[in-house]
């Protein structure tokens, strides 16, 4: 065993740090640190910076334009980006659709779509969940009926993150309603500008509008946009769900969040002393810090067990559960640290202009972030679903 970084890895880390130093504008990092939402332009800016450097697709094979890093390198990169408060790369094209196309797409699909993901020409969103099919994803009802060279799609998707910016959506649709639940599902690529698509924003608990409902009414999709075989979409969907999990534990985000907590608690005064010196608060912080130290090792152990570019197995459920517990605990600590100053929420001055909120600890919206991050244990397979997956894995054979 050896916990230290190799010389190559150290050099790589220095390279990442230098890159971030040089290319990440302070104002953009500040917005990320303060959990403010970014514009499409800001997302695109950072996407392009990374693509220019060849670092946009850490887990794609080189032949598709990826960096093909190993687990340690990916980890270093994710950590450094999070600690520098770089914008998070929107994962739908790069981490979700990309690997599916690489594994199951036709050569024509690969040649056409993959470069457009890298260049940012296409902004992808995900059409998986439906109102009646949340945790029970396979209960989806959106129908696609073949009509000549097209499928005609009707139905509704929901929780479509950043769908308002997207020009493309990959969808699970039911192509054979007579088949059993998981069978009869297909994987379609749909242009968001098609007639019959309507995107309706959902306002979330924090007041933000990062997710949407997407309605499909007689939307015509060319058959060449079918990925793989008709009625085999569930296979691709499961591959996608378990594939890109190298960063599922979110260790870098937790580290960055913990730094924020310490920053707030160092500024907030309780009885004339920094809150960080209060034994009870210090204990809360130390407890999470310790858990995170172990989590970083757990994450590396599990991720590096998986072969290069491959997804970890059932253990990724453990990473998801513990990782989100820690991340959510940190958002609670930030809110707790800010104390009464966590309460100012939406900003609209008495005079009708948008006066900035009081923010004496330069923390941004800690309450909004706390509530927003409740999603971590719900979306992408709730923690209860993750427990069930791992429980079945543990109890294999018993029935």
């Amino acid at each position, binding site marked *: 065993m050896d916990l230290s970084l190799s010389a190559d890895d150290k050099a790589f880390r220095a390279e990442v740090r230098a890159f971030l130093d040089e290319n990440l504008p302070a104002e953009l990092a500040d917005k990320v640190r303060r959990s403010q939402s970014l514009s499409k332009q800001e997302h695109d800016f950072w996407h392009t910076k990374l693509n220019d450097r060849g670092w946009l697709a850490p887990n794609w094979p080189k032949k598709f334009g990826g960096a093909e890093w190993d687990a340690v390198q990916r980890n270093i990169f994710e950590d450094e980006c999070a600690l520098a408060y770089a914008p998070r790369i929107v994962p739908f094209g790069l981490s979700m659709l990309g690997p599916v196309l690489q594994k199951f797409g036709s050569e024509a699909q690969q040649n056409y779509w993959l470069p457009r993901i890298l260049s940012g020409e296409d902004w992808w969103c995900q059409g998986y*969940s439906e109102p009646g099919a*949340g*945790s*029970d994803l396979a*209960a989806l009802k959106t129908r696609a009926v073949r009509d000549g060279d097209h499928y005609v799609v009707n139905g509704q998707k*929901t*929780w479509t993150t950043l769908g308002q910016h997207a020009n493309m959506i990959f969808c699970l649709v039911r192509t054979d309603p007579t088949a059993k639940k998981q069978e009869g599902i297909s994987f379609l690529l749909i242009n968001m500008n098609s007639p019959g698509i309507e995107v309706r924003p*959902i*306002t*979330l*608990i924090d*007041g933000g509008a990062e997710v949407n409902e997407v309605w499909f009414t007689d939307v015509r999709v060319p058959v060449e946009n079918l990925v793989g075989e008709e009625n085999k979409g569930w296979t691709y969907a499961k591959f996608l769900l378990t594939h890109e999990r190298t960063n599922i534990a979110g260790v870098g985000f937790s580290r960055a969040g913990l730094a924020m907590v310490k920053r707030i608690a160092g500024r*907030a*005064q*309780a*009885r*004339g002393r920094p*809150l960080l010196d*209060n034994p*009870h*608060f210090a204990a809360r912080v130390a407890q999470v810090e310790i858990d995170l130290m172990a989590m970083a090792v757990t994450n590396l152990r599990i991720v590096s067990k998986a072969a290069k570019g491959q997804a970890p197995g059932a253990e990724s459920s453990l990473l998801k559960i513990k990782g989100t517990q820690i991340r*959510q605990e940190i958002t*609670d600590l930030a*809110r*707790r640290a800010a*104390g*009464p*100053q*966590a*309460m*100012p*929420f*939406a*900003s*609209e*001055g*008495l005079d009708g202009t948008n*006066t900035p*909120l*009081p923010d*004496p600890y330069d923390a941004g919206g800690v*309450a*909004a972030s*706390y*509530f927003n991050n*409740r*999603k971590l*244990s*719900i*979306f992408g397979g*709730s*923690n*209860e679903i993750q*427990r*069930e997956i791992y429980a079945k894995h543990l109890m294999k054979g018993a029935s």
Partner: protein
Amino acid sequence: MNFELTEERQMLQDTLRRFLSGATGDVWHDLAELGVIGALFGEDAGGFGGTGFDLAVVFEELGRADLVLPLIDAALIPGRLMVAAGADVAPLIAGTERFAFAHSELGARYDLNWVETRAKDNRLTGEKTTVFAAEDADTLLVSARLSGAVDDQQGIGVWQVAKDAPGLTMRSYELAQGGRGAEVSLNDTPGTPLMTQAYDAIADAMAAATLSQCAETLGAMDVAVEMTRDYLGTRRQFGRPIGTFQALSHRLVDLMMELEQVRSAVILGAGHLENPPAERDRILSATKNIMGRVGRLVAEDTIQLHGGIGMTHEYALSRYAKRIAMADHRFGDTDHHLEQFIALSR
């Protein structure tokens, strides 16, 4: 011992519940007419209630409603202070004049004795933060220091300050729990003195406010848990109601259990509001500590058990969850009250 409501309080509860179930918009005058503000004060002050159990009944009902009324900040706290000063609270009870109490300062965090704002010749200078209900108040009560170190209990006074007084500026904003707060800046602002040694009265008003906040949050938790129970009974996944999955139903049981603990803690707090300060505050610290811990659990778990729908602003649960979680930041949080409980238990 007796855990039944008196007939009068039962009536108050019923009236309030009926009224609030249909209420929208500015209902302040209606509330006053219903006698809800009067229920917060004793007969000697022109009210007809004012004990811990009166407050518990009123605020639990307020908490059950899907709207935010600043009854604690615009009526209870300023009214208690004015009663202590022997001032007339009739316009407050009648709902014709509205108040707010500008006391919190950045350095105070949750401590009542930390006042940096200075008073000299009835002119006040300093910065007050997160002042609830300030925007709609006609008159602000403002605490300031006449003498002593920044954290002395002695030497704190309270003044009445008109909202349009010279040197007063106000910056207002929405609050995470709903309602509005403001930063209030005073620069040589003239005020009319209400009290010169106000700490005990402030502590008394804040004790009543703490109890009321706990009762209000109990009401909100009750609704949030009940909504979750309904949801688990009706939402179907994998061919059955999700409430038939132990992973979810057993967590609902835990929520119900903790909710009973909060209910008990509020009863305890209500029963001790009229006790001597040290005893009163020790019990209320216990109440607020439980409220804070269970509140976090209820806010987080009711959202979790709802899944995505619980995250949406449109669905009432998210509004209740925000009120429940953010209540921890009022009148001392979980840790603050644990420390106070320890200190007062010695």
